[in-house]
């Protein structure tokens, strides 16, 4: 490999980026080499462009290149099993980021709990709407495990805690234009919609524009206000929260993903091991099944005031610990 090498001399690790067309993953891509440098790891990177077949090929390339550990973020959690077996056969430790493989062993899963995203969004909207009204959920892609986790958790939480709220779920294929189109149709058919949960920031601008066109982009104090909860925590969301256009977001820890993925890899190469329990970085390692540990990083709810909503604490939008506030 020519490019992508950081801090020479250390063990070589391979990192596969899942995609490069979302703000969130691009932040991850940006943080990874920085963390590698700090940890003294030499880095080989590939990009599987959201295609598990490509990921499998990339893993083989890593093996050919003789890496000592692999970090990956398989967006298809079932199909990755054969690749994991190959790596296991070569005794190459693996850390998965963001998703947990359905089968196969990995050294550590570093992820935020996607079900918790949906749950937090649900609690926030439930509290703001006082348990009644209609909300639109702009889902991602049905084929995405993370999207499905958020959808199910949001639906389950609504059903259990706020039976008075009707959820209109719309599949959007992670496409902003599709999201805007569906939201617009829903608002036409149901002018009394009071909340929107977008499962990713891809739909952010489109949603705001649709509301603006319908004259619904008004201050939270106005009875016409539609409450918006976003997901990801990119800088633009934080800025919109500050401006009062967006009410909350769930901040995915892009920086922590990069940092801890590489840290665990290094530990694995050094022969360290971990046990379930609290960690030193405000998170918990849980054993999700036999031989599979998962470091569940905290994914805070971010609001304009940092208040607590139906039991869910939140951070204020300008909190320095948020990765979205740390970029440049």
């Amino acid at each position, binding site marked *: 490999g020519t490019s992508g090498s950081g801090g020479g001399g250390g063990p070589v690790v391979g990192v596969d980026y899942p995609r490069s067309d979302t703000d969130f993953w691009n932040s991850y891509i*940006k943080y990874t080499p920085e963390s590698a440098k700090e940890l003294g790891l030499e880095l080989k990177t590939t990009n599987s462009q959201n295609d598990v077949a490509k990921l499998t090929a990339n893993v083989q390339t890593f093996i050919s290149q003789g890496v000592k550990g692999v970090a990956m973020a398989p967006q298809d959690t079932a199909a990755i099993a054969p690749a994991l077996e190959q790596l296991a056969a070569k005794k190459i430790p693996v850390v998965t980021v963001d998703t947990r493989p359905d089968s196969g062993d990995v050294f550590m899963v570093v992820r935020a709990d996607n079900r918790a995203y949906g749950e937090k969004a649900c609690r926030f909207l439930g509290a703001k709407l006082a348990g009644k009204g209609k909300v639109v959920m702009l889902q991602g892609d049905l084929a995405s495990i993370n999207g499905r986790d958020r959808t199910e958790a949001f639906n389950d939480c609504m059903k259990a805690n706020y039976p008075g709220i009707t959820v209109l779920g719309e599949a959007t294929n992670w496409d902003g*234009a599709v999201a805007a189109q569906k939201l617009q149709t829903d608002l036409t058919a149901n002018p009394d919609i009071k909340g929107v949960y977008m499962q990713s920031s891809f739909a952010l601008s489109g949603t705001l524009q649709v509301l603006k066109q319908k004259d619904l982009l008004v201050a939270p104090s106005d009875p016409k206000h539609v409450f918006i909860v976003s997901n990801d925590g990119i800088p*633009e969301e934080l800025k919109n929260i500050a401006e009062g256009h967006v009410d909350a977001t769930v901040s995915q820890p892009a920086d922590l993903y990069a940092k801890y993925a590489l840290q665990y890899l290094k530990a694995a190469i050094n022969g360290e091991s971990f046990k379930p329990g609290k960690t030193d970085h405000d998170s918990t390692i849980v054993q999700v099944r036999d031989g599979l540990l998962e470091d569940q990083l905290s994914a805070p709810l971010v609001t304009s005031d940092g208040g607590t909503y139906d039991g869910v604490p939140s951070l204020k939008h300008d909190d320095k610990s948020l990765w979205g506030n740390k970029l440049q």
Partner: protein
Amino acid sequence: MTDTQTAVTTAAPAPTSRKIAIARLRDLALIPAIIVIAIVGQLVSPVFLRGDNLVNVLQTMSEIAILVLAQTLVLIVKKMDLSLESTVGLAPGVAAWLTVPVGAGHGLGLLPGGWSVPITLAVGVVIGVINALFIIRFGLNGFIVTLGMLIVLRGILTGISGGQTFFRLPASMLYLGTTQWLGMPASVWLCLILFAAGIVVLGFTSFGRSLYAIGGNVDAAKAAGIRTDRVLWIVIVTASLLAALSGLLLSGRLASVASAQGNGYIFTVFAAAVIGGISLNGGKGTMFGAFTGILLLFLIQNVLTLAGVPAQWIGALNGTIILIALALSRVTGGKAQE
């Protein structure tokens, strides 16, 4: 003489008027399907036929409809332009990159915001010129060239944006995508006006007819005195320019340029054009037909959304309805398709 004719006419009973009718009705082939969808839609939800819902449909389809218009021009002259979909992203993307200030919007902030619209359109023209150079000047296959361009342009957008979304676009970029003229979104007006212009140009001007001649038989067109290369240049560059305009409207409406903007559109564009009666073999089809094609697709989408079909079955239903609409339109349209 007359004898012979009579004899023949008796043998094969007067099909002429039917043939003419079929040739003419071909444009209207999708109308029955659209009517059926409208009726179903109204049954599904009383919202469907309400003015604001129809305006919604028109607004959400306006950008892609302009792409359909562009592709229709290209298809009629028997070319293809796959790169239109990436022009939709790259043209406004470059403008945003240059004009959006450094910071959250991810731009370079090199130029003032007023430049954004001219830059968008200029990028469209440049892409068109490159395509035309390859295809007309160097005689390379249009499918291959524009496929290559599609990948390159998409890649450039990912490159300059670093895969991130450009936000905080200058006001001039937002104008067309957000403003209302006489109570309807400007993009709807623009789309309708462009289609009306397309219908007039293709149907009632010598330039428009020359597209059909070129698509039908380029040698015959040349023989009839048409400057074929010039017309092809105009068509290819215009198509890219329209794609840039479409991208401008989309960016305006969404107030951002995602690095994946336009990805996958070309599929819908081809589907709409072909369903609307535009032949991939050139020289056939009308602008009105193309319009009914894209309208049908978006009406189906709208009805499915209003009906609240479970997300996982939307795809299958959508496809089935499209297939049925096609079968229906071909029953009305008559004969076998090549």
